[in-house]
């Protein structure tokens, strides 16, 4: 795919995503019925759950791209992994800020050792480690490989971490959408939630494409700078 196509796809997905984000905010504030037991605060749900969905989706993309990068060594796949990790870190942060705000009112506490909340916090730290490894190597190629290893090992470990945090009794509401007997949710609430999920998935992929295009441009520019430097007479070629 040419860079121009990537950027236009990013613009299109972004415009649609932002439009739908405005729409679902209107739904959240003016349209959807208020939940009976938790009251008005339950409306955080419509940004909390899509954020969590993106956080884990992004981590899946990071792990797959990391494995493909180690296999093929193609820089483009590494750019994709980094773009997904950046998006994932943003949405994980959204989950971690909206969760305690909701929890403070619904459960009366900012933090509980609730399985999914704990898992998200650990996921956030794995993302942070991913970027710290990448940014603290002098050799860029090596940083990419190190980060890929961190991404893969993190993803392999997620199921076991999930089992461990489940060990503690759960305060978190049980799944309301992905249930074997169909969604247990007011139809208007479901519509709002699905709009929000779609909106943020589009926003995520738009950010992903923009970051991917930016990374491609950066590496092309670095290559150009290197070629220029090697052509200038008397100059030493910088070792990458």
């Amino acid at each position, binding site marked *: 795919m040419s860079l121009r196509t990537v950027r236009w796809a990013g613009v299109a997905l972004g415009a649609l995503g932002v439009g739908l984000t405005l729409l679902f905010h209107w739904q959240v504030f003016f349209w959807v019925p208020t939940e009976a037991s938790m009251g008005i605060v339950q409306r955080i749900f419509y940004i909390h759950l899509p954020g969590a969905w993106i956080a884990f989706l992004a981590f899946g993309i990071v792990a797959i791209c990391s494995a493909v990068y180690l296999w093929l060594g193609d820089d483009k796949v590494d750019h994709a992994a980094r773009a997904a990790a950046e998006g994932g870190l943003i949405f994980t942060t959204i989950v971690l800020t909206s969760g305690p705000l909701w929890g403070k009112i619904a459960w009366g506490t900012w933090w509980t050792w609730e399985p999914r909340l704990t898992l998200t916090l650990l996921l956030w730290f*794995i993302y942070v*480690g991913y970027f710290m*490894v990448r940014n603290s*190597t002098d050799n860029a190629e090596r*940083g990419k490989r190190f980060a890929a290893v*961190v991404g893969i*090992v993190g993803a392999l470990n997620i199921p*076991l971490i999930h089992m461990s945090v489940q*060990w503690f009794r759960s305060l978190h509401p049980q799944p309301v959408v992905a249930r074997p007997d169909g969604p247990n949710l007011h139809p208007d609430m479901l519509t709002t939630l699905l709009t929000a999920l779609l909106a943020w998935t589009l926003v995520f992929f738009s950010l992903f494409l923009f970051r991917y295009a930016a990374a491609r441009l950066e590496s092309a520019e670095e290559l150009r700078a290197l070629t220029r430097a090697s052509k200038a007479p008397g100059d030493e070629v910088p070792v990458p």
Partner: protein
Amino acid sequence: MNRFWTGVAAIAGKDLRVELRTRERIAAMGAFVVLTALLFNYAVDRTAVHPREIAAGLIWMTMLLGGLLGLGRTFELEKEDGAFEGLMTTPLSAEALYLGKVLSNTVILTLITALTVIVFAIFFQVDLSGNPGPLAGVLFLGVTGFTALGTLFSGITAGTRMGETLLPILLFPLLVPLVTFGVSATATLMAGFPANEILGTLRILTAFTLLALMAGVGLFRFIVEE
């Protein structure tokens, strides 16, 4: 295949021989766990809770923190005088290098863990007589899983500017299963329950250790590659 295991043994033998002669890592880790246990005596309010009652968790955390001290220096010797490049020019495969390092780290950390348990038994009258065999098994499994993951990440941090300071940031989030199930199994055994009570926990600990070893064998190549 035989050559492969000879390589593993050669790396582990070299590291252990160096350790036996300098005693640097083992002395630092040993002093660390004894002093940590000493500080726990003052950190825990004995009128509220006796350290004996939370011994399983304290032993595991002391072992992990002490182990981190040694694991972070796994590749310290190789960093000097181009020793690592020398090692890479030998016919030794990356997988053999990894497993050799895991082996030597496991031996050292097993000794440190034994010391930790003895120190806790003496300082806080922790009763170990109930299930000594299964208890040793659980701790050994935990040590192996910890070193398997720690050696892989130590290879990564050795190649970064941040060095050892980065190790806990990478390692700790992934150690949650080890701590959760390791401490739970240890506490169950220390409370005198029979060993078949911890079969489920043991299965997850084994899965963690195998997964860590497989990830290390499969991915270590990409860390040492130039």
